[in-house]
């Protein structure tokens, strides 16, 4: 019998070579006792990580990015949830167009969004700050929230909400007691994704943050100093690993919920 090769192999090979190998190299070099990022490695050190924690501007940037990320993902998830409910549960004129348009930020280059937001802010007089960048972060992360949550909403029937109203709740009560609890895993997943998008975002932030440096902006600025390169690498390694962890967590949350509804075999 002929064996068919799984075409997924090529996909994973490409991914492993071009994505994970550089990441792994980066992590390895972050422990290298030399300012040159090349083999052979000189020795193992945690110096660069220690160095990181002593840099005041860096800690500042971390703080800004975390607060910004939380704020952005709260707003983006809230708006995304509202949008998802509208698109999945209601039939209104122009729904298809709105659905298509709401995914637009996914395909517009961030640089262009950043420049155009800069022009707009000048015109209407918004001061440049991390929060000014945050507004645009909401815009680019909202579609992800919308897509993740609407997939979940589409996975269970509308008549659950009707059943709740039939049993005495108002429409908002039904959302609160039925829709939100069932969608909660996807809402948390959306929150985490929005957070990583904001936390890692560079192009838009570089135009809009003004003097309030976020972590990616700080990281990029440090590349000008060759001596600081290993510190930047250590920082990048931390960013990378934490983002991957968040993504894995959100993916797990997303699938956790699906099994619950569809197969119904959750213990």
């Amino acid at each position, binding site marked *: 019998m002929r064996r068919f090769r799984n075409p997924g192999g090529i996909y994973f090979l490409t991914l492993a070579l071009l994505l994970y190998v550089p990441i792994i190299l980066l992590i390895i070099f972050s422990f290298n006792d030399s300012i040159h990022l090349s083999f052979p490695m000189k020795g193992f050190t945690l110096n660069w990580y220690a160095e990181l924690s002593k840099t005041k501007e860096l800690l500042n940037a971390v703080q800004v990015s975390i607060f910004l990320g939380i704020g952005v993902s709260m707003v983006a998830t809230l708006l995304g949830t509202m949008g998802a409910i509208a698109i999945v549960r209601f039939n209104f004129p122009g729904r298809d167009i709105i659905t298509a348009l709401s995914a637009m930020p996914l395909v517009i280059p961030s640089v262009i969004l950043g420049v155009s937001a800069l022009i707009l802010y000048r015109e209407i007089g918004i001061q440049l700050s991390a929060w000014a960048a945050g507004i645009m972060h909401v815009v680019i992360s909202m579609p992800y929230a919308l897509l993740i949550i609407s997939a979940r909403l589409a996975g269970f029937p509308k008549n659950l909400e009707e*059943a709740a109203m039939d*049993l005495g*709740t108002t429409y908002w009560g039904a959302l609160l*007691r039925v829709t939100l609890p*069932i969608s909660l895993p996807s809402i948390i997943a959306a929150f985490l994704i929005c957070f990583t998008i904001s936390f890692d975002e560079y192009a838009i932030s570089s135009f809009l943050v003004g003097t309030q440096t976020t972590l990616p902006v700080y990281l990029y600025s440090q590349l000008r100093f060759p001596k600081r390169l290993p510190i930047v690498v250590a920082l990048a390694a931390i960013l990378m690993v934490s983002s991957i962890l968040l993504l894995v967590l959100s993916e797990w949350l997303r699938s956790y919920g699906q099994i*619950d509804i569809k197969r119904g075999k959750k213990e």
Partner: protein
Amino acid sequence: MMNFAVELKNVTKIYSAGRSSDAVVAVKKMDLCIPPNEFFTLLGPSGCGKTTTLRLIAGFEQPSEGEMFIMGKPMTNIPPNQRPVNTVFQDYALFPHLSVEKNVGFGLTIKRVPRLEKDRRVAEALELVQLTGMGQRKPSQLSGGQQQRVALARALVNQPSVLLLDEPLGALDLKLRKDMQIELKHLQEQVGITFIYVTHDQEEALTMSDRIAVMKDGIIQQMGDAVSLYEEPANHFVADFIGESNFINGTFEGMEQEWAVIRIGNQRSYAMMSSEKPAQNAATTITIRPERMVISSPGEQEGPGISGTITEVVYIGTDIRYLLELATGQEIQIRIQNRSKENISAFPKGATVKISWVPEDAKILAN
């Protein structure tokens, strides 16, 4: 004045998707009175407006025109959560994130019924549907039939004035469905609540209902109990939808005593007179149930009848089904009960036979 459990006055529901040319009339000028404690069924093919009618009563849809009353109180613009009705949904719509107990107690929780009373009523409801001891499970851990019972308990625990059931047995297999039909009927008698039941299954409707409304195109075609619908179908649609019927075309020749004389081809037969007397020599259709017709050999029996040729004999155990072609070219079927073995081969395929019936069993259909 008598209060009906549910009363619809001239209710119309139009769905419009933007342009008026796309408007669909789901329910057309419906008048409906359902007395308390009745098991009432809305029966019809899909798209006939039966589910829309139920959703109007539940409050999920607003009527485009007309008025509605539940237990004598106007309900036209009252939202679902303020109506004294509860619904058992087609696919049960159990809350997947809550246990059976919390599903059943949902309505009582919303109404802030004290904890002890709530626990007692939930336990009673679970006992009523024979699910005692299942309270801690999640709906996903139950079989289809058990989920069905949870849905029932969840609705009944609120002691609604009217219970609405939207094809609740549709997803169950045949055997379980038959058991549940009987059980539902008993349950309804036990709790003494008005049931409004929606189904497309005529046998299910006949089995359970006190009264049935047969619907088509948003209009009630006929309303009555099982016997009157089967024995006195008001029109072609009802005769065809409820059970099996033969439709034979002929002309109305006049009256002979109280019977209508119908000419079929060149032979004469008798039928019950309809309320509207057809014009002399008008084209008429009569309907007769397959089991109410008699086959005999030509010349064997006296009296009126028409002749036909047997085109197919189908043995189905309890009955023998004959397909026949009349002299006029029309096809009909006749069922004869399989009462003795000799009957089986009495009328072979290809035989020319006489077909007759008692005049009471032939109805003239309104055009």
